[in-house]
């Protein structure tokens, strides 16, 4: 038996006997087994320190081993103390020892080694340290998956000892309480994916657990097809799922072997599209990405929008390679990529595709193309005017321009096309004009009568001013009390316009025609610039560009200020204002008025008062 001042340790199993072997000891001389402690109710209120143990029972049997210091304790030599690499073994195979609780205390009363696992029932007795352990406790208490335990106090550390600094302590106790449970197998994870990084840094995983790892491609890379990340676990291949954000996730729901992560991300190349009125497909699926992947095979097909066809070959360019898409002689709404006579392309560089589907002939005039360029586009086109197919030779492409007009109406922006001068592709796109006429709604006005009598109709003049056209007379009977809508229809080819005024019922009450544009000179044809830039209709120069209706109505006026005017009207005096004289007066007396006052009032009214 040891005497006082010796440190002792207990390793206690709550559910199964245990033995030990091996280990490196420091200042340990006494080893042995403890007598099992039976019928422990760790759920009772007396055992408040233990009732939080996992799967706490009311009839546990505690088994244990003990060992103690070979050297009496003193303030300076109690540490290092303990055992390392002590192999614990249970009575059954395939189990692992799990630490549930560490209990430390100093004791100033007991001075003998315990012969059975001690159970402290005092509420304040010692320190009770529950998992998860922090870095300090794991520094002297730890256990591996193979049940190799370390209980080794390397220096004087008071943190986990109760009253350690007391000068009266006589005994230091360390109690490790745990249990045996079925051991799980740990599998190794090997990651050899390329050009990507997973969000799960685990290098091992317990058998039966679910393993998930989401990979993000490195900058300039992306996941695609068979090269995306995948895992092999126990001979089974687990493909990743590519997420909407471009990441790829591998999930193994029940790990039962080592995991090898392979695959990875592929280098991206830019996909530069200049598509007009058509959509790019890869095989049967619309292709919406702005990149293509190195080494990947793409079956690119261009589908023109409704009412558009390919009248020119779409072109592609990849590094130094260039080529056309193939067009069917039957169906000009589809163009397939052609690469070394294959209907696919394998990527090794940035890819550029230019395609220009034009309006179907049934919606166009055949001989001409009509564009609606912006000023900047027009400026750009003007710089393409002189084309040089060979050194020193120039072709004036304005020969292919029929007209250029400036219109004062807004042209609907339906689609864009590349601008062609004859067969020459300017590589400049502009909006196209698809309608035969452009309708401009000038809004609605309501015309009310002014006098409410015949003066609004007799001798009245009503005109509607129409910018670019002039004025038209309106019939008062068709105007008063009506909501009138004004619309223009303009031919974009030559600027001819017609304006018409309709009632809310759709009745047209007036119309007129004019021109809403002027020619812009572009050439010096026939030796006379005056052939261009002129217009018979110069009304576009008129200041007012807002249409209006002007009503010139006769209105009858009384000459109020003429005192000589003889009215001879019988009125109530309160209806008068200004200077007024009365001849006959019917006085309605409200207040008491004496005769002198009455006479004076009558006299004043007859001579004129100001009301």
């Amino acid at each position, binding site marked *: 038996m040891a005497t006082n001042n010796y440190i002792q340790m207990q390793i206690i199993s709550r559910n199964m006997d245990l033995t030990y072997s091996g280990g490196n000891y420091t200042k340990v001389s006494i080893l042995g087994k403890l007598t099992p402690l039976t019928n422990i109710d760790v759920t009772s209120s007396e055992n408040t320190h233990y009732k939080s143990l996992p799967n706490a029972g009311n009839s546990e049997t505690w088994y244990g081993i003990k060992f103690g210091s070979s050297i009496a304790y003193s303030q300076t030599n109690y540490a290092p103390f303990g055992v390392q690499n002590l192999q614990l073994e249970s009575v059954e195979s395939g189990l692992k020892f799990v630490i549930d609780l560490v209990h430390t205390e100093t004791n100033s009363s007991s001075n003998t080694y315990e012969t059975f696992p001690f159970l402290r029932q005092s509420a304040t007795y010692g320190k009770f340290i529950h998992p998860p352990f922090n870095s300090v406790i794991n520094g002297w208490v730890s256990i591996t998956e193979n049940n190799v335990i370390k209980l080794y106090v390397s220096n004087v550390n008071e943190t986990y000892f109760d009253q350690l600094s007391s000068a009266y302590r006589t005994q230091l106790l360390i109690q490790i309480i745990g249990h045996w449970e079925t051991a799980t197998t740990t599998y190794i994870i090997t990651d050899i994916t390329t050009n990507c990084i997973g969000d799960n840094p685990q290098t091992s995983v317990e058998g039966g657990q679910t393993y998930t790892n989401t990979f993000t491609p490195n900058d300039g890379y992306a996941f695609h097809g068979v090269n995306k990340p995948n895992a092999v676990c126990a001979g089974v291949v687990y493909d990743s799922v590519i997420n909407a954000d471009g990441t790829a996730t591998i999930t193994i729901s029940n790990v039962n072997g080592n995991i090898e992560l392979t695959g990875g991300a592929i280098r991206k190349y830019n996909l530069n599209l200049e598509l007009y009125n058509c959509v790019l497909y890869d095989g049967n699926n619309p292709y919406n990405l702005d990149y293509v992947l190195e080494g990947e095979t793409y079956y690119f097909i261009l589908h023109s929008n409704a009412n558009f066809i390919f009248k020119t070959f779409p072109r592609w360019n990849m590094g130094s390679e260039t080529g056309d898409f193939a067009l069917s002689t039957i169906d000009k709404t589809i163009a397939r990529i052609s690469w070394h006579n294959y209907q696919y392309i394998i990527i090794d560089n940035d890819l550029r595709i230019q395609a220009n589907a034009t309006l179907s002939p049934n919606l166009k005039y055949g001989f*001409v193309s009509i564009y609606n360029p912006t000023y900047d586009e*027009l400026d750009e086109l003007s710089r393409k005017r002189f084309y040089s197919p060979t050194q020193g030779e120039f072709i004036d492409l304005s020969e*292919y321009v029929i007209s250029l007009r400036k219109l004062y109406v807004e042209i609907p922006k339906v689609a864009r096309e590349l601008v062609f001068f004859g067969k020459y592709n300017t590589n400049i796109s502009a909006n196209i004009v698809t309608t035969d006429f452009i309708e401009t709604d000038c809004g609605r006005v*309501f015309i009310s009568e002014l006098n409410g009598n015949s003066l609004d109709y007799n001798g009245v003049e009503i005109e509607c001013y129409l910018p670019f056209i002039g004025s038209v007379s309106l019939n008062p009977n068709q105007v008063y009390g009506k909501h009138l809508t004004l619309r223009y229809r303009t031919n974009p080819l030559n600027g001819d316009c017609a304006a018409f005024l309709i009632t809310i019922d759709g009745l047209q009450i007036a119309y007129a025609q004019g021109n809403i544009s002027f020619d812009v000179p572009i050439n010096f044809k026939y030796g006379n610039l005056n052939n261009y830039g002129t217009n018979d209709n110069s009304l576009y120069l008129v200041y007012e560009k807002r249409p209006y209706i002007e009503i010139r109505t006769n*209105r009858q006026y009384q000459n109020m200020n003429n005192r000589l005017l003889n009215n*001879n009207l019988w*009125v109530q005096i309160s209806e008068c204002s200004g200077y007024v004289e009365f001849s006959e007066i019917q006085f309605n007396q409200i207040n008491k008025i004496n005769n002198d006052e009455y006479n004076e009032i009558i006299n004043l009214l007859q001579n004129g008062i100001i009301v």
Partner: protein
Amino acid sequence: MLALELYKVTNQPNELNKTLNNPITISGVFRTEIDCIDIVVEIESNNYDYNYVFIQSLNKYYFVSNITLVNAKVTRLYLHCDVLMTYKTDILASFGLVTKGGNINPYYSNVESDSRQDIRRIAFPYYFNTQNASFVLVTISGSGVE
């Protein structure tokens, strides 16, 4: 003693409605028997800057027709009733045959009147903004595959 409200009015005497300015209230005494049309009162004041009076006890308005300085402290006012202002309500409720003047509904007139042209302009909401003109370029169509 009676209360006098003194005013300064600038309206013409034959105006029905007077605008009463700079009111002050003082006390005075009658110097004559009251006949309501013309009365004389004496007041303790040397301020002559008033030409109109309202006498609450008589409920009548008066022109100040004359002022006499009785002594250094007493001023005598000669007042004449303004029947237009006093009986304004009665007059407005009365009827009369207008012989001259008066701003009356012009369309009641059956005699001399004047007809002039009245011009109204009603603009449509939309206007053609020449700053937003469009260009239309027409070229010969020569592109394309057969």
